[in-house]
């Protein structure tokens, strides 16, 4: 069997977490325009909006000691996946 409930549990947990995060900015789930929504920009966390060959968030040290964080993840304004393409092709 390809898709059992156990395997799907983690996928759904991630989905639920994302929706919960979005709920604070979106009125209703069914009005949540998933791929071009207002939430998207709002969750950009240090986003640089896709600056060409650039970007990068500033680092920060966690309070527990000498571990720096934030040195990755600063470029993505709209996620890191390669969805587009096609003729024209565009993107990864």
């Amino acid at each position, binding site marked *: 069997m390809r898709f059992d409930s156990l395997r799907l549990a983690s996928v759904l947990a991630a989905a639920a977490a994302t929706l919960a995060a979005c709920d604070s900015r979106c009125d209703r789930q069914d009005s949540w325009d*998933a791929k071009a929504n207002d939430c998207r920009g709002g969750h950009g966390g240090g986003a640089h909006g896709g600056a060409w060959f650039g970007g990068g968030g500033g680092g920060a040290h966690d309070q527990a000691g000498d571990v720096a964080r934030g040195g990755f993840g600063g470029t993505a304004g*709209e*996620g890191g996946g390669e969805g587009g393409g*096609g003729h024209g092709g565009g993107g990864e």
Partner: protein
Amino acid sequence: MERLDITPRSDWREKVEALGLVWHTASGAPYWNESACYRFTRAEIATVEQATHDLYQLFLAAGQYVVDQKLFSRFGIPAWCEPLIVEAWKAEPPALNYGRFDLGYDGRSPPKLFEFNCDTPTSLLEAAVVQWAWKEEVFPSAWQFNDLHDQLVARWKDIGPCLAPGAPVHFTHAREGSGEDAVTTAYLMDTAREAGLATLALLASDIGWDGRRFVDLARREIRTLYHLYPWEWLVKEPFGRHLLETRERTLWIEPIWKMIWSNKAILPILWDLHPRHPNLLWASAEGPAGDTYVRKPILSREGGNVRIVRDGVEIAQKDGPYAAAPVIWQGLYDLPDFGGNRPVVGSWIVDGTPAGIGIREDGLITGNLSRFTPHIV
């Protein structure tokens, strides 16, 4: 190859959400589009499968050529990354080695390559899970070219014994609001779990550096890291240089040599090495050969800053943040037109084995909001 108009399931939103596809709607219209489907013959699928296999062989040869000739500057790759790429290319560290060839295909002439999305490919959950579940419910007696899930699990099983013993595989992605990256990463994490591996998730911005090691939020050393976060971003960010220091400690999946294959600068090299190959379009880094062409930034995403010119007239273009990027020119392929819907075939491959297809349709330029439309055979 034909496009069938069909009636969507009345509760399709709930059903695809139950499978994790929470980004099913875009700008008020379905991104997951089951008001139609594509039907292929077995022979057509065999053609796509063979082209996928052949293209993979071309990429192997082209990658070796780039490494041997040290052509990294054409790719905009920082000089300090070159030894890491060469080292990884030669050593072949464990990798999923998966990706999606975006192809133009009309069911008659040979499929043509637009690009290879093999660093952080998405539309994965749609292709592997959602369209399969749709097929099982709507066309249970039909076949579907879709072995993607099983091949991913098998690949994790293959490489599992080569990963750091006793350490979990960490999975990371960018923080973004649609849920697409989070769920796609969670899905891949689950394929690893199904293969028997221990897994942990964390955001890219939560990856820590303790002065000599990458660590997670519990300060556990990250020994193996799957990243749905592009290499060209990673190497430009503040922690990027730590890749050098940790080359013996942290294994990145996918490996850094994917900076070669996933970059559109590879397209002119492929054409130079295999001119007039039936699965390639003409491509050049020097300029257009005539007045009909597609101009693409080498590292653009979601169709950003792509421009299509026919007979000297711009017929399509898409804005984006890559205007200052180096570009390549590619021959224009006339996508088949099904009532204004122009499908691009995303042909998946896992470590050299064709694994299935997913179709997205739009106008001339396929982007982030293009509709995913399922298929049967």
